Structure formats: structure tokens, C-alpha cells
């Protein structure tokens, strides 16, 4: 049964991936004429040179043909070459991926480690001052623009601290330009972007843990566990938390694509050389092989994340049936 369920979801996923790449390319195709800005104005190039350059990039074909060729190559592991610098797109992706993962995984791990205890405390002390404070914090977390939070942190911890001669945090990049690169240096650079990124996860997941926990604690089996004299600790953690975390797994699975794209704005604010910023910068330069490559890659992650969340959910919770 589970095989059939997964097979059906896989089929749906293939359709989604095809759809996403087709939509992306259609959009990019509309900008095609503008590719290689100013190429038509360059007096050193004869019209036939321009035509040859365009043909080299496959830009003389109608876009559906380009799409089919591109798709065929991607299925064979060839993402093509960047239209800007001519180096393989896959190299670009693999070069940027570790930076993005470093940032987003830190943020997600921080988010999980902090949000679950906060959510549990909120649920256990429902209505208390602590609970209200956590609620306010979470509501604020939803409303604060990520890029602005980043700018404010830079303003305070980099600009102002440096101004007063206090130890300050680097405002951008993965490592210091000169003589940096050891673990301590990397961590210093990681602090602010990871904080900003995890802030949103924190508000979302702590809120979610809290309501999920409240719901579980009102179940009959919790009353039964208490009635048979189980210690409150065991009730809360063994029966309560374990069941309350099941829906959270789905939520975190759905964040998997956010691991790459969600960090885009934070990457831009902190000049973090990650995948999101790569796609953003290259899109501005009409480098569509690179953009298509990143979008395809990220969409695969989206689909894999959804699938993983569904399967995990079904495995963790026997009440779910595959249908």
C-alpha cells in the first residue's frame, strides 16, 4: 500500500517539476530578446557574429525546442553552461550549496532546539505571564520583515559597536576577506544571518508546538496515563510531546525548499554567497541556464521535501492511511 502511495505521489511530483520548469522557461523566454545586453550595439561585432553567438547559446531555436534539449540534458546530469561566464552551471550550484546549507541548517537546527522547549513551556503554563510573553514574541516574529531585522542587527552590532570601539560582528560574507577562514571566523560571520533566519522559524514552530501540545494534552489517553499514576514528567514527555511533534515533522519537511530559497533575502542582506543570491543576481543578468538550473534544483528539493513529510507523517502516525 505504501509503495502505491509513494508511486502516486512520485508521478504527481514529476508533473509538478515539469510544470515548474516550463513556467520558469516561458517567463525567461519573454526576456530573451534582451539577452547579452547591448550586444546589438557593439560596433566590433558583425551581424553574423551576433547570430553565431546566439546560435552557440541555442538562442536561435524556438523556446519549446530549447526546453526539450535542456530537459534532455538535465536528465543526463548536464545542467549546461552559464551564459555569463561559460562555466558549468552544476559547478556554480555545488560551489554555492555548502554556504547555503551552512546558513540554513544552522537556522533550522537553532529553530528546532529553541522552539520546541518554548512551545512546551507555553502549553504547560498556559495563561501564565511566561505564556503571554512567548505569545507576544511569536506574534512579533511574524510581523517583522526579515531584511529589516537583518539591517537593524548590522546597524547595532556592526556599525554602532564598531563606532564605540566595542567588539563588533562582521556585517557580511562567509569569511573575512584577509586572513580569515578558520572555524571561529566562520562562526562570527554566521551569527547574525542565522539569527535572522531562525527568528521566523522560531515564531512559527514554537506557536505550532504549543497548540499541538495543548491539543494532545486534552486527549483521553493523557488522562488515562495520569489516572494510572504515571509521573507528570513521563506523561508530558513520553505521551504528550511525542505525539505533539508528529504534525511538526510535516511542517519542518515543508520548510526544506525554504532551506534554499527562503534564505535568499537574508543572503542578499548579509552578502552571503549562497544559492539564492546566485539565482537572484543571475536572473538580473538574464543568465537563464544558471537560473533554470537553480530553479530545477530547488524544485526537486520542494518535491522531495513534501514527499518526505508525507511519508514520515504516515510512518509516525499509524492513524493516517495512504489513499
Amino acid at each position, binding site marked *: 500500500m505504501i509503495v502505491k502511495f509513494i508511486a502516486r505521489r512520485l508521478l504527481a511530483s514529476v508533473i*509538478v517539476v515539469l510544470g515548474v520548469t516550463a513556467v520558469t522557461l516561458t517567463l525567461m523566454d519573454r526576456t530573451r530578446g534582451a539577452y547579452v545586453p547591448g550586444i546589438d550595439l557593439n560596433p566590433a561585432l558583425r551581424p553574423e557574429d551576433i547570430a553565431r553567438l546566439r546560435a552557440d547559446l541555442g538562442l536561435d531555436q524556438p523556446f519549446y525546442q530549447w526546453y526539450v534539449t535542456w530537459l534532455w540534458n538535465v536528465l543526463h546530469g548536464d545542467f549546461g553552461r552559464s551564459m555569463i561566464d561559460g562555466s558549468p552551471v552544476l559547478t556554480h550550484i555545488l560551489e554555492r550549496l555548502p554556504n547555503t546549507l551552512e546558513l540554513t541548517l544552522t537556522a533550522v537546527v537553532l529553530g528546532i532546539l529553541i522552539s520546541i522547549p518554548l512551545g512546551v513551556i507555553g502549553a504547560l503554563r498556559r495563561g501564565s505571564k511566561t505564556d503571554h510573553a512567548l505569545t507576544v514574541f511569536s506574534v512579533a516574529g*511574524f510581523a517583522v520583515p526579515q531584511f529589516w531585522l537583518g539591517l537593524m542587527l548590522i546597524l547595532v552590532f556592526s556599525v554602532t559597536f564598531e563606532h564605540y570601539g566595542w567588539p563588533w560582528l562582521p556585517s557580511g560574507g562567509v569569511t573575512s576577506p584577509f586572513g580569515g577562514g578558520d572555524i571561529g571566523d566562520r562562526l562570527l560571520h554566521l551569527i547574525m544571518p542565522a539569527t535572522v533566519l531562525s527568528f521566523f522559524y522560531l515564531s512559527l514552530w514554537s506557536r505550532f508546538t504549543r497548540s499541538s501540545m495543548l491539543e494532545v494534552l486534552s486527549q483521553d489517553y493523557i488522562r488515562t496515563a495520569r489516572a494510572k499514576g504515571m509521573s507528570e514528567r513521563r506523561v508530558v514527555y513520553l505521551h504528550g510531546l511525542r505525539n505533539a511533534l508528529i504534525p511538526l515533522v510535516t511542517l519542518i519537511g515543508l520548510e526544506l525548499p525554504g532551506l534554499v530559497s527562503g534564505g535568499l533575502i537574508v543572503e542578499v542582506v548579509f552578502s552571503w554567497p549562497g544559492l539564492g543570491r546566485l539565482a537572484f543576481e543571475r536572473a538580473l543578468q538574464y543568465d537563464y541556464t544558471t537560473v533554470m538550473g537553480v530553479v530545477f534544483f530547488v524544485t526537486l528539493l520542494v518535491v522531495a521535501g513534501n514527499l518526505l513529510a508525507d511519508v514520515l507523517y504516515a510512518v509516525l502516525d499509524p492513524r493516517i492511511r495512504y489513499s
Partner: protein
Amino acid sequence: MIDPGGITQLDLPGAAIEGEARRPAQSYWNESWERLRANRIGVFCGALILILALIAIAAPVFSQFVTHFDPARQHLSDNFRSPGHPYLLGTDELGRDTLTRLIYGGRVTLGVAFLTVALSLTLGTTVGLVAGYYGGWPDDILMRVVDVFLAIPAIFLFILMSILFRPNAITLAAIIASVGWGGVARLVRGEVLSVKQRDFILATRSIGARDLRLIFRHLLPNVLPVLIVAASLGVGQIILIEAALDFLGLGIQPPTASWGNMLTNAESYFFHSGWLVVFPGVTIFVTVLASNLFGNAVRDAFDPRLKAH
């Protein structure tokens, strides 16, 4: 009362519930309205949004009589002023008055937000009604399309479309709505699927009502509560998205002020004036906060399922 996935938990005052028992039966709308009015945080936040919207609409009046500055007028000798007199919230790198620009920016930002909500609700509701009511292959096709739009990492879609269309306020709203409608469509379809099963639909059909009449006179009013809730919860998120796009240089283009693009160059001017970073951000934060809290209040008041708890 538990609100899974919700942002806040706002308990209804006991008085409203007590009163309900004594009053004669009320319509759903009256009851919901009473509940909303009883929620003090909700009313306050709703009023705040209304005031901000009114200030934005009356921007020229404020610029003439309150701030005495034009949003685009440069005072190069007065650039990077700190808050004070006569520039209440200071000036930017070109000596433009920050407060006046914030007021004018509110026009753009709030206008785009409301337009986006309207567009995505219209498209999403139509698709959801059709898919849910007819079922079968229209449902399959429409829902696969929704899947695709929800699976594209939204930020990439925004970036590509913004590059393509070089947006003004209206196209920007269309761009953001082109992603937002998918969620609404799913929501409406789900509601329709459950409402469709009820007896009154069968009864209406049995006396010869046509499809269109069924959809617009009977299904639509029943999904309206869900739509109201989705709309009021959506505004805050849309303001955040819009601000982020403006910040990235993909939304409203300077010299038109918007809360997001006022922050675009902020990083370059950190050393000249930190205030430039503070005010637009605080404005966005307060507006989104108020929208979210108002949205929560509306959900608590209008979502009939919460009454069960």
C-alpha cells in the same frame, strides 16, 4: 479553545457568551460581528489599519498642512538630518522628508496589499468553486495547475516576473497575486466539497436550480466566512512580500516612495544616518502586526468551527 497553526489565542470575553443565551437567535453575520466587536485588541488593530489607510489616501493633505514637504522635493543642503524640526522624522540622502515619504509610501504599499488580496481572492475563489463543484477532470487539471504554482519557489517567480514586467503598483499586485491565488483555490475547493454534500444543495437542485445559481447563490455565501478570514489574514503577509520585493529593487521603482524601497540603499548610509533604517522598518512592522492581530480577531469571530471548542 485551541487554534492549530494560529498566531495568537484570543479568548472571547465571558460576557459575550453569557449574553448569547438570553438573546433571541441571531443570524450568523450578526453573531460574528458582535464577537468581533467584543474583541478589544481586534477592534483597536482594525481601527489602526483604517487610520493608516485614511492617512495614505489623504497624503497630499498631510504633505501640505502637516509636514509641509513634498515627497520628491530634494533639499540637498539638509540631507541626513536627524528627527527634529522641521523634518519630524529626518531626511534621506537627497534631503527628502522621511515622514512625507512614509505617508506617500503608505499609499503604494497599502494600495498594492489590498489590490493583491482582491485579485488573488477573485481568481482563487473562481477556480476553487469550479473545481470543487464540477469535480472530475476540471478538478484534476485545475488542482494540478495549483500544485505547480504552489511548488515554484515563490521568490523565484516574483523575481522573474518583476524583471519581465518592470512593475508599477498594479502589475506588482498582479505578480504577487499570481502566487497567492493557489492557496485560496485549495481552501475554497475544500469548503465547496463539504458544503456540496449538504441536504439543502440537493433540495435546491431538486427544484430545478441551475449550476450557476447553485454556485453563486448557495455555495458562494457558504464559503464567504472562509474568504473573509483568508483575506484578513493575508494582508500582513502580502505587505511583507511587497516590502521585500521593493527592497530587492524588483518592486516599486524609485523615485516613487514605498516602505520597502526606502530601505534599499539604507546599507550605504548606515554611517550617515541610522534613522533612515529605523523608521520605514518600524512602519512596516507595526502595520503588519496590526493586520495579523486583526486577522486573528476576524478568524476567531467568523470561523464557525472555532465555536465547537
